[in-house]
C-alpha cells in the first residue's frame, strides 16, 4: 500500500514536532506504522535510544505491534508500544521509591476498592454514594490533585475521605489506575534523575487518539516530547467522545501549541463509500465551533445510506433483523463484518431478542467481563491450536499473539516461533484433552500458560492480575457457549470478532470498522441524550458520537428510529439525521 502525499509528509518527518489530524478511515495506523519503520530505517534515533508509542488501549498497542511485526520490525528492545497506564506502571515500577512508592506495588482490584469506598462513604457525611465518591477521586487524580494540595472543589469531609483513601492504599502498597498516570507524572516532575533517564531513552514520541487524553496524560506526553528529537501526535477532535471521563478534546491543539508542532491533516477517507463520507461531513460540519477540516472519500463507489422510522422498537427490531439476514445472505461473508450500533445499552434488548428468535448469531463484547489483553489473546489462540495442533494457520496465530504481546522479548529474547512451537509440542504431548467450554483451564495448563504468565509479567501482582483476567475469560467462554449453545471453537471465533453480528455501543464502536452498520434507536432524546439538549458542549459531544457511529461503515449504513420509543410516545428522529439532506439517502424497501 502506498502513501498519499500527506501521509508521506507524516512518515518522512523524522525530526521536529507534528500534530496529525486524522479523520475516520484515513489510514492512520498504516501511516504511523510506516513512520516508525522509517525512523528506524533512517536511524534518526541512535542505538540504544528508543521510541515511545502510546496508545489508548491494550488492543491498539497489540494491533500496532502486529503491524510492525508483519513488516519485519525486530528491534523490540528499542520501542515501547504501550498504554498510558502501563507506561506509568513501568516508570513507577522502576523508580517509584523516589516519591515514596515502593516499586513492588500492586494495583487494587475493583471489589477491594469498592469496599474501601463504601466504608468511607459510610464513615464521612458526604451525602452521596460510594461509586460517585469513587469517580470524584478519579477526577481528582486526573487533575493530579493529591491530599495536602490546595484545591477548591472538595469539601472538608471529602478531602478527609480522600486523604484516608490514599492512606489506606499506600499502607497496603496498592495503587489505583488513576495513580499510575498521576504519580508517574509526579515522579517525572520531581526526580531529575528519573526524568533524565527516561527522556534520554525515548528520543521520539508517537501518540494516537490524543483527543482522548486528560490533563495528566497531556503533561506526561509533554515531558517526554519536549526534549525528544521529534513527536507525532495523532488525534481527531471530531472523534472525541470521552469528555465525560475527563478527556480534553482541546488537548490536540494544546500540545500543538506547547511543542510548537506543525499541523498535517489526513482528510482522505479510505474506508467508507462516498455517500457515507459526505453525509458524515455534513453532520460534523454542523458544529459551529468546530475547526474546519476537509474530508474526502477515496472510494469511487457511491455506497448506501438508509433512513427509516418505525412505529415502535419491536417493529424496528423486526425489520432491522430482516435486513441483517438479507445482508448476510447477499453482501457479507462473515457476520462479524456487520455491526448494530446503539447509543445506550438498554436499546439493545429488542434487537437482540429478535436475532435470537430468527436465529442470527450475535455477539456483545460489553457482556464480557475479561479485559482484552495479551494473555487473553494468546489463550484464545492456544485454544484454537489445541483443536488442531497440525494446523499451520493456528500455529501462526499463536506466534502472532506472542509477537503482538511483545512476549518473545520479555521472555528473554527468544524467538516468537520458538515459543509457539514449544506451546504446540506441549499440546501435542498432552493427549486426551477435552475441548469443551468448561475445560479451557486444562488446555491452557497443558500449553504451559501459567509459566508464560509468570515469566512475562511485570512482577507478581501483574501476573496475578493476568491470571485472574484469564479466569474471567474462562467463565465468559463458558457462559457464552451456554447461552448460545455453541462449541468452544465458535466462542473463540466470536471473541475475536468473527462469526457473529457485533452489537456495540457508540463508544465501543470507536476504532472499529464494518461493511454494514445498523445505527439504531436514533431518537432525539436517545441521541442526542435528553440530558444534553440544553448544553451546547454536551450536544456537540453527542454529535460526535453520531459521527463516529456513522463513519464505522464501509459500504452501507442504516439509520433507524422508533416513533414510540420505549417508555416515550411520539419521539422525534434524531436532529442529527436531519442535518443530512435527503439526496444522500437511498430508498428503503420495506
Amino acid at each position: 500500500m502506498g502513501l498519499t502525499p500527506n501521509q508521506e509528509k507524516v512518515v518522512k518527518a523524522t525530526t521536529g514536532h507534528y500534530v496529525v489530524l486524522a479523520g475516520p478511515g484515513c489510514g492512520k495506523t498504516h501511516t504511523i506504522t510506516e513512520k516508525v519503520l522509517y525512523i528506524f530505517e533512517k536511524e534518526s534515533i541512535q542505538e540504544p535510544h528508543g521510541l515511545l508509542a502510546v496508545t489508548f488501549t491494550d488492543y491498539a498497542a497489540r494491533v500496532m505491534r502486529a503491524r510492525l511485526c508483519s513488516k519485519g520490525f525486530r528491534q523490540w528492545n528499542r520501542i515501547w508500544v504501550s498504554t498510558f497506564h502501563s507506561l506509568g506502571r513501568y516508570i513507577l515500577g522502576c523508580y517509584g521509591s523516589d516519591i515514596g512508592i515502593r516499586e513492588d506495588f500492586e494495583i487494587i482490584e475493583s471489589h477491594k476498592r469498592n469496599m474501601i469506598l463504601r466504608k468511607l462513604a459510610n464513615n464521612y457525611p458526604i451525602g452521596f454514594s460510594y461509586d460517585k465518591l469513587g469517580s470524584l477521586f478519579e477526577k481528582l487524580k486526573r487533575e493530579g490533585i493529591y491530599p495536602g494540595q490546595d484545591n477548591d472543589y472538595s469539601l472538608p469531609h471529602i478531602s478527609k475521605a480522600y486523604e484516608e483513601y490514599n492512606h489506606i492504599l499506600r499502607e497496603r502498597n496498592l495503587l489505583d489506575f488513576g495513580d499510575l498516570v498521576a504519580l508517574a507524572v509526579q515522579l517525572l516532575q520531581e526526580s531529575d534523575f528519573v526524568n533524565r533517564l527516561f527522556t534520554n531513552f525515548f528520543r521520539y514520541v508517537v501518540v494516537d487518539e490524543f483527543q482522548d487524553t486528560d490533563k495528566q496524560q497531556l503533561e506526561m506526553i509533554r515531558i517526554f516530547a519536549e526534549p525528544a528529537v521529534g513527536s507525532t501526535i495523532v488525534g481527531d477532535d471530531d472523534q472525541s467522545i470521552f469528555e465525560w471521563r475527563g478527556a480534553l478534546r482541546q488537548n490536540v491543539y494544546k500540545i500543538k501549541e506547547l511543542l510548537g508542532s506543525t499541523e498535517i491533516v489526513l482528510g482522505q477517507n479510505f474506508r467508507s463509500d462516498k455517500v457515507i463520507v459526505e453525509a458524515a461531513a455534513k453532520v460534523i460540519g454542523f458544529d459551529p465551533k468546530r475547526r474546519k477540516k476537509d474530508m474526502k472519500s477515496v472510494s469511487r463507489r457511491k455506497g448506501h445510506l438508509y433512513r427509516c422510522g418505525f412505529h415502535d422498537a419491536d417493529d424496528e427490531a423486526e425489520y432491522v433483523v430482516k435486513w441483517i439476514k438479507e445482508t448476510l445472505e447477499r453482501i457479507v461473508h462473515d457476520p462479524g463484518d456487520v455491526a448494530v450500533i446503539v447509543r445506550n445499552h438498554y436499546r439493545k434488548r429488542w434487537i437482540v431478542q429478535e436475532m435470537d428468535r430468527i436465529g442470527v448469531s450475535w455477539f456483545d463484547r460489553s457482556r464480557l467481563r475479561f479485559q482484552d489483553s495479551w494473555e487473553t489473546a494468546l489463550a484464545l489462540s492456544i485454544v484454537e491450536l489445541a483443536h488442531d495442533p497440525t494446523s499451520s494457520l493456528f500455529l501462526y496465530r499463536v506466534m502472532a499473539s506472542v509477537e503482538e504481546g511483545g512476549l518473545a522479548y520479555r521472555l528473554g529474547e527468544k524467538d516468537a516461533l520458538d515459543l509457539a512451537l514449544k506451546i504446540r509440542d506441549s499440546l501435542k504431548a498432552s493427549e486426551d484433552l477435552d475441548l469443551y467450554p468448561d475445560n479451557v483451564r486444562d488446555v491452557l495448563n497443558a500449553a504451559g500458560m501459567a509459566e508464560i504468565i509468570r515469566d512475562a509479567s511485570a512482577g507478581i501482582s501483574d501476573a496475578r492480575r493476568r491470571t485472574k483476567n484469564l479466569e474471567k475469560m474462562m467463565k465468559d467462554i463458558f457462559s457464552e457457549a451456554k447461552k448460545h449453545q455453541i462449541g468452544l471453537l465458535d466462542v473463540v471465533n466470536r471473541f475475536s470478532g468473527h462469526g457473529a453480528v457485533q452489537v456495540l455501543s457508540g463508544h465501543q464502536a470507536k476504532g472499529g470498522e464494518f461493511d454494514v452498520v445498523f445505527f439504531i434507536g436514533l431518537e432525539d432524546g436517545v441521541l442526542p441524550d435528553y440530558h444534553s439538549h440544553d448544553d451546547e458542549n454536551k450536544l456537540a459531544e453527542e454529535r460526535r458520537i453520531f459521527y463516529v457511529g456513522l463513519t464505522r461503515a464501509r459500504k452501507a449504513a442504516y439509520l433507524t428510529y422508533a416513533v414510540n420509543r420505549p417508555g416515550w410516545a411520539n419521539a422525534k428522529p434524531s436532529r442529527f439525521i436531519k442535518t443530512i439532506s435527503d439526496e444522500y439517502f437511498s430508498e428503503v424497501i420495506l
Partner: protein
Amino acid sequence: MRIRKIKIKNYRNFRDLELYPAQTTILIGENNVGKSNLLHALRLLFDPEARRLESEISEDDINDAARSEGENSFSITVEIGDLQEHQELEANFMPRIAQDSDETYVTIEGRYEPDEVGEYSFKVLVLSPEGRYNDPIPFSDRMRRYIPLYYLDAVRDARREMRATGRGALAQLLSDVKLEDVEEDVLTNIRKANQALSQNQDINNLAEGIGDLLSPYIPGGQGEVSMTVATEDPAQLVKGLRLTLRRQSDFRAYDMYRHGTGLQNLVLIAMFRHRISTAGAIQPILAIEEPEAHLHPQAQRCLFKNLEKIGGPVLLTTHSPTIAECSNPLGLIRLTFTDQNQITAQQIDQSKMVKDDLKLLARMMRSGHADAFFARAIIIVEGPSEVIALPAFADQIGHRLDRDGISVVPANGNAFSCILRSCSSDHFSIPTIVVFDTDVLQHSNDLLKQAYKVGLINKEARNAGKNAPAELRQRILEEVGWIPAVLNFEEEVARIGYLQLILEVIEEAGAMLSLENFLTENDLRKDPHGVAQFLNEKRRKSLKVPVAYAVAENVETVGKVPHCFERAIKEAVKLATGGETAIWG
C-alpha cells in the same frame, strides 16, 4: 565509565573475593593464584563471546571448598559506574540504574545455580538497585554490546596471529576488508611480476622440470606449472596479504615475524587495540594478560602509558615490576593465598590512606621498589646500604631472599609509615620487618611519630618518647617488634670485622686525610664508632654506597653477619615461608 567493584563467590579458586578496580588495574600475585580466573570471570559477563564461554561452564567451576560445605552455586557481581558520563549507557540500562551521589551505576550479576529440578544454568542479570523493591532484569545482548570486554591471552603466538588466514587477529581484521577498487590494478601488477620472474632461466627450468614429470598424471596431459611471486586468483588476494614494518634504520620493509618477539608482541597489542577502536563499542573494557611479554622495560612503560590513555577500564595481569611501578598505587591489586588456602584480593583502601602517603608510595614505586608488592615479606630498612648488603648477608646465613619472595625496601628516612601502612591488613597485607638505626633517635622523635602514624603505638607512648632519652625511644620501638641496629649500618658492620675493608674503601676514595682530621677534631679514634661517625657525616654520604658494595662483596671472606640483620632475615624468611601470621595479624 568505570568498574566500581567486582565480587566473586565460589568461582573456581575464589571462595569470596572482593576488589575495587581503578581506571587501570594491575593484577599481581604469584603463579596459580587465579589472576586469569579473575579475568575469565569477567569474560563470562562481558566478553562478546560470552555465550560461547557460558556453554563451557560446568559444576567443576564451583569452588571446591564451597562444594564441600554444601554450596552449589557461584556468582560474579560487577558494578559498572560513572554511567552519567555516557548518555548511551544510561539509556542502555535505563530501568535499573542506581545512584551514589552524582554517580550512576548498575550492578550486573552472573549466577550459576541449579533450578528446581536440579538443572544448572548460568544467568546474567541486572540487579535491582539497593533500596528499591523491584526484580532484576536480564542482562541482554544489547546491553553487553555497549560495554564489551576484549581479552588478550597470555599465551600468544605472534606468528599465528599475524597470518592473514585462519582465526588469528590479522585475519579477523582483514575479514571486513574490501579490495574491489584496487583489485584489477593489483592483479595486473602481480601478473607483470610473475612474468618478470619467469624470465629467469633457473626458475623456468625448475617449473618446466616439475611440469614435465607431472604431465603424465594430469588428465589430458594439459597443464602448465609455473612459479609465481603471488597468486593471480582474486579470491585469494586478501589471504596473501602480509603485515610488514620498515623502521627508520631499515633498508626495506620486513615481514613482522622477522622482527624481534618483543616488537611482535607490540604489534599484536596494536592490532588488538585497533580491532577494539573500530568495533564501535561505547566503552570497551580491556583485559590483557602479561602485556610485558618479551618487552624491555622502556617499551613496557611506554605501552602501559598508551593503554592508560584508552579511557575505558583496563585490567592487566603482570609479573613485571616495571609495569607495576607505572601504576597508580590505587590500581595495584594483589591476589594472595590466605592461611585457609583461599584467595583474597589486597589493595590500597583509599579511605584509610592519608593523601601524602599515596604520594610517597607512588614515589617509592617509581624509584624501582614496586617489586615490594610482589613480595611475600618485606624488610624495611633505613637506606640503600642495607638494600645492597642484605642479600649477601642472607646468602651467608643460608637463605635466598628472591627465592623466598622477600624484598628489601629502603624507607629513606620518612617513608616507614607509608610502606608499613600500605602493607597492613587493611591494604596489601604483606608481613613486614623493620630494621632501624638507633643514632637518629638521639636527636629526633621522628621514628616514634612514624610508628604512631601507622597505629603501632598510641599517643601516650609517642608523647612519652618526646624529649625522653634515646634508650626509652628505642625500647618503645623494640616493643612493637622493630629491630634496632647499633647506631647505624656502618657501625654495625665495622664492629664485627669489616673495619679494615671500610678503611680500604676510604683510602681508595682518597679520603684518608679527611678521616684523620675528622677524628682529631671530634676527639674520636680510628675504631668502628669513629669511622662510622665519619661516614655518616653529611658531606661523606657518597662514600656509603661503595662501602656497602665492598661489604656485600666480601661477606663470604669476612664470614660475619650483623646480628640485627641476621635476626631480620630469619624472621622475614619465617613469615614468608613458614605460614606464621604476619605481625599485623
